[in-house]
């Protein structure tokens, strides 16, 4: 069976010459939920931007559902990979939430009446149907985060990629977002510095540091290894212990 995501020997240097990735291998099967962990500057965001062809591999290869990321099929790749960016303000730009949610599917050729249906379903899935006609500017942080998630869900991606979804959320909004994500039932790659969140949502974790994968295994096992965590600038919150 083809993997949902298959990254092999991916290396990449930014135009200014800074090498951010040095041969990353990562394979995610359909329906898996995987956390992508690592210190600041490890290359997590850089890796994520390769998954939908924003960055083009310097060496190595990225495949989504068996389709290689190339210049020709970048649009199909972007339909398959939905990226929720770290800052919802970057994602939301239309006058109303509903317009913003419609933006992606409309780009991918979805037309009315199906378009309205998609918008409604996506807003329902994240529990903010009542915000449809509001301006994204005037929403709270948690509402914006959900709206941003809806804009990507509406594209019906095969794999959902989230860049630090729990930042700036209050504890209740953070838990509610977890409930939403757990209810989605699709392949998910979640970049996070919030280790308990990774443990709650993702059975498997991949740690990258210095542009390479340094660990790949069950989240609980990785987080229980205090020496390993310390070696890669990862730390459980104060008072948090795994038994």
């Amino acid at each position, binding site marked *: 069976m083809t993997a949902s995501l298959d990254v092999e020997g991916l290396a990449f240097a930014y135009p200014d010459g800074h090498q951010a990735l040095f041969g990353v291998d990562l394979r995610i099967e359909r329906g898996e939920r995987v956390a992508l962990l690592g210190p600041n500057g490890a290359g997590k965001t850089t890796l994520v*931007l390769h998954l*939908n062809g*924003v960055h083009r591999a310097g060496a190595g290869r990225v495949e989504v559902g068996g389709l290689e990321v190339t210049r020709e099929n970048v*649009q199909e790749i*972007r*339909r398959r*990979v*939905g*990226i929720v*960016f770290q*800052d919802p*303000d*970057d*994602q939301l*730009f*239309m*006058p*109303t*939430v509903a*317009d913003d949610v*419609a*933006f*992606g599917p*409309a*780009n*991918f050729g979805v037309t*009315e009446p199906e378009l309205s249906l998609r918008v409604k379903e996506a807003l329902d899935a994240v529990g903010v149907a009542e915000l449809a*006609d*509001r*301006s994204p*500017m*005037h929403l709270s942080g948690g509402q914006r985060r959900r709206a941003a998630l809806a*804009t*990507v869900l509406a*594209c019906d991606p095969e794999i959902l990629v989230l860049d630090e979804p729990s930042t700036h959320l209050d504890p209740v909004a953070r838990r509610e977002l977890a409930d939403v994500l757990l209810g989605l039932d699709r392949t998910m790659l979640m970049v996070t510095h919030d280790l308990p969140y990774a443990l709650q949502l993702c059975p498997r974790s991949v740690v990258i540091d210095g542009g390479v994968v340094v660990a790949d295994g069950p989240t609980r096992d990785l987080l229980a290894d205090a020496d390993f965590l310390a070696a890669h600038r990862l730390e459980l919150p104060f008072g948090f212990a795994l038994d």
Partner: protein
Amino acid sequence: MAAGHAHPLYRAGDSVVHRLPAHVKIVVAFLFVLAVVATPREAFAVFGLQFLLLVGVWVAARIPPGWLATRALIEAPFVVLAVLLPFFATGPRVEWMGMSLAVDGLLAGWNILVKGTLGVLVSVTLAATTPLRDLVSGLSRLRVPSMVCVIATLMLRYLEVIAAEARRMRLARVSRGHDPRFVWQLGATVRSVGALFLRSYERGERVHLAMLSRGYTGAMPAFTTASASTATWSLALVPAVVAALLAVSGYWVA
């Protein structure tokens, strides 16, 4: 709730004018302004009639004139220019209250003043009765290049983001003891304007990335907007056509 559609010039309502499709209103407003501009400047009465026509539209849209007047203040610089012209223009002069005024300058000032005022009033009327998203989709329906529509949407959207960013940066400065009242502290304000520009630019790049990730290829998707029947068009065009007829009659009079 329509709060999300608001922009500072919009006045929510449910009048005939509010319900007209945006692209119709844009065309009518454009034609109206054209008619005003084409009217000869000596046809004083025609401008009065065109103004009355506009008042008729306000009555239909239920917009109080006072509300409009405050919004029309953006034209103040034109008024200043118009008032100054008679003093500085050359040519035949008339004496008025002991001042020597150039006839040509008077007419030129009047021309700017009356056409500018009517033009601003028409634009404010359009903005007051049309929510932002309708304005933008109306433009794209009129085949205005999609890039212009994209820029218009983003500009209106990010004015708020940038204003909020500027507020946060100012707060952060003030919290660290910066008091912009003192002249020697102006430097920090100026530097922060530079930082704001950079931040806005970087934000723009990230927004563009996020748009690309959702399949954006350079054209805004066409959202369905209400189309207009011939009857709607005929009704909406009345003010523009009357304004144009008045303009033509102006050439007779003048």
